[in-house]
């Protein structure tokens, strides 16, 4: 049946049709929907893992047991899971195992713009790269065949524009797969003696994969005019076709590691000028150059940001249509914390106390945005606690009295726990604030080990954060409600004042959760409001100044009452009817 499928949904459909039984992932834009769609098939066991490394290792265990398995992550998630990946290349698989890594060129929702193709090369693992949903579905199924044929995990590289674009794909039936487990110490126990024997097997496999790359239909040549030949893949292929149609020749790569040497040489020989069109790093171009072929690419196209058809058109000197523009300056619309966001009260307090805030990855990174501007650093998942530890170790008392780490519940479980262990073990006077909003927020509300529910919303194991911190050796663990500004300030003041390490759990569920009951919106009494703008310091999207006085947008306000606590004239009141 032909249907319009989101790229990520097409991957999930491919998993279903390939007979996959096990999926374990940690959410990360733009990869999240693959696992959310896969869980809709009863035949596939799906779970959210605490982090990408755990997810990949779990999927490896499932493959070892003889069932086809899968894990998905965003590009930076693969950094976390790189450790098992590199050695899984040596062990190979039992049943097929496929890994999706979703890059985010353009950084729509990421902290960097790394190119995941480097991992395939470094780990010596084949990588496929679909250009639309139909290919996402077909490549997923083929990846399992390759995984078993060549005894290797297979990477599929997605990008935002393939993952989050719907295009037409044809669905098929599921075929079950089952393989017995057989103990094989030499293959699966990677101690030096065994690993030394596996490395030559990896090299031989790469050679076999290179031969496969020469003949597979994953890499196809579309001959057009011979004046210009373009080597490309993924959405770059779509942009090239958008600009040139069938007027130029194209080598469209569906398998981007290893690359087909002879096919590239033949293609280069059939055209007068050769250009590589690829987003981010010039990996294909450098390879082509290493073959001694004349090639162009990075000299005409940027290595920064995602492409679109006009960028490609301009690179080849083609005219594009300039759009209309108004003379007015158009103010930007940056993302903001939602009205009623529990993080707001906490960041307001940190800003008020002029704290140095080592931040982390999640919605609360928006604490860095004006007017709160209450963040000094954001690096990667879990870095808040470790960096605060290092900062305090070097700056001692002059720093620890005002320095905090802030980290969300899901991020804490992902990779903050090990940082906390370091604070406890190596004893720095660090105050860690865990922002427990009972959900993984930024990626669109996924459950995690601290929420007590699994991916299907069924009751599951729940980590007791307070008990966990105490067990690590923290004597000072306290819980606050960030809607209560006074209690929040008292807790932060007291914990920063004490020389002992401490944990504050700022607990209040995300205001967007369906189970959260909102209060009636507030309204401003214009008689009482003196227009002092004290309420504007919290950056709430529901509050603005209209004709000199504060105004609450009743369609946005959820009655959290944080603004009310800042007003010196009690001008805010609930619109609830008694």
């Amino acid at each position, binding site marked *: 049946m032909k*249907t*319009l499928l*989101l790229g990520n949904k097409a991957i999930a459909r491919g998993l279903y049709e390939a007979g996959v039984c096990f999926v374990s992932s940690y959410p990360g*834009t*733009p990869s*999240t*929907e693959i696992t959310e769609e896969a869980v809709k098939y009863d035949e596939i066991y799906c779970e959210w893992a605490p982090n990408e490394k755990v997810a990949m290792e779990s999927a490896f265990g499932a493959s070892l047991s003889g069932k086809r398995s899968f894990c998905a992550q965003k590009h930076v998630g693969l950094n976390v899971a790189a450790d098992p990946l590199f050695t899984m290349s040596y062990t190979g698989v039992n049943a097929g195992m496929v890994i999706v890594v979703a890059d985010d060129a353009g950084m*729509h*929702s990421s902290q960097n713009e790394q190119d995941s193709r480097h991992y395939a090369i470094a780990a010596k693992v084949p990588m496929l790269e679909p250009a*639309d949903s139909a290919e996402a579905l077909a490549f997923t199924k083929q990846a399992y065949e390759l995984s078993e044929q060549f005894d290797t995990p297979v990477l599929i590289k997605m990008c*935002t*524009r*393939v993952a*989050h*674009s*719907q*295009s*037409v794909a044809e669905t098929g039936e599921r075929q079950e797969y089952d393989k017995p487990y057989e103990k094989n110490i030499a293959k699966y126990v990677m101690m030096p003696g065994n690993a030394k024997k596996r490395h030559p097997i990896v090299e031989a496999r790469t050679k076999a994969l290179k031969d496969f790359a020469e003949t597979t239909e994953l890499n196809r040549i579309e001959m057009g005019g011979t004046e210009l030949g373009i080597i490309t893949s993924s*959405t770059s292929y*779509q*942009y090239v*076709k*958008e600009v040139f149609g069938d007027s130029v020749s194209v080598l469209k790569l569906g398998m981007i590691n290893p690359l087909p040497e002879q096919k590239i040489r033949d293609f280069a020989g059939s055209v007068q000028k050769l250009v590589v069109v690829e987003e981010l790093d010039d990996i294909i171009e450098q390879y082509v150059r290493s073959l001694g072929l004349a090639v162009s690419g990075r000299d005409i196209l940027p290595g920064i940001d995602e492409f*679109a*058809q*006009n960028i490609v058109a301009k690179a080849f000197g083609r005219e*594009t*249509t*300039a*759009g*209309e*523009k*108004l*003379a*007015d*300056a*158009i*103010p*930007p*619309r*940056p*993302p*903001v*914390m*939602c009205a009623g966001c529990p993080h707001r009260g906490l960041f307001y307090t940190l800003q008020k106390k002029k704290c140095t805030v080592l931040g982390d990855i999640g*919605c609360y990174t*928006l604490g860095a*945005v*004006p*007017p709160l501007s209450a963040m000094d650093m954001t690096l990667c998942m879990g870095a808040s606690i470790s960096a605060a530890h290092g900062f305090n170790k070097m700056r001692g008392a002059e720093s620890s009295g005002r320095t905090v780490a802030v980290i969300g519940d899901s991020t804490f479980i992902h990779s903050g726990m090990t940082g906390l262990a370091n604070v406890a073990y190596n004893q720095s006077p660090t105050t860690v604030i865990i922002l427990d909003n009972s959900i993984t927020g*930024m*990626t*669109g509300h996924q459950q995690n080990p601290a929420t007590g529910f699994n991916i299907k919303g069924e009751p599951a194991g729940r980590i007791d954060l307070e008990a966990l911190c105490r067990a690590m050796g923290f004597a000072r663990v306290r819980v606050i409600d960030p809607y209560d500004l006074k209690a929040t300030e008292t807790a932060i003041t007291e914990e920063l004042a004490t020389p002992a390490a401490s944990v504050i759990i700022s607990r209040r569920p995300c205001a967007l959760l369906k189970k959260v009951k909102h209060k009636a919106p507030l309204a401003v009494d214009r008689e009482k409001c003196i227009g002092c703008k004290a309420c*504007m310091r919290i*950056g709430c*999207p529901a*509050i*603005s*100044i209209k004709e000199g006085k504060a105004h609450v947008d009743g*369609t946005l306000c959820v009655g959290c009452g944080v603004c009310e606590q800042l007003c010196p004239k009690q001008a805010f009141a609930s619109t609830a009817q008694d």
Partner: protein
Amino acid sequence: METKNIIIIGVGGQGSLLASKILGDLLLRQGYDVKVSEVHGMSQRGGSVITYVRFGSHVYSPVVDEGEADFIVSFELLETARWLKCLKPGGQIVTNTQQIDPMPVITGAATYPADLVAKIKAKNIRIDAMDCLTLAKEAGSLKAVNIVLLGRLSHYFDISEDIWQEVLTANVPPKFLALNQKAFTLGRNYQA
């Protein structure tokens, strides 16, 4: 057929994804090749959310670039102005006249430009501006702005209202169907 381009612009949380889903389904049923491109994640937190819908005999790129949109469908006036550059010469804008202040305007760091509709009209651009919030309220829910806009967009397509309503029925929950049908008709039949 040459590929046609629509961009749908909203502010995070306004329901632009449902509008693009319905549109994609409709065009697929009409036998076109279709691509719909969305953005999820951080930019949805009250930020500017843009969705591209492309259809034709064969669609390659999933995105609509500068100067390419046959239609701009916008949930908010400032966003209409921001993405004006994407409109093709001779293209049509369908916009809600609602104004949602972005944070730099709320904090006073920037001002919301005045008279945007008039300024766009002054450039001889075809703009269909309407108060969708009032129409949505009339239909029964402020959240139906997306369907009001879709109804208005349908006015520019040579596809019968029955087919639009059929696709609407297939894509909204039954308990909200009557409301959405009303919102669609109000948008479609709107008289400036």
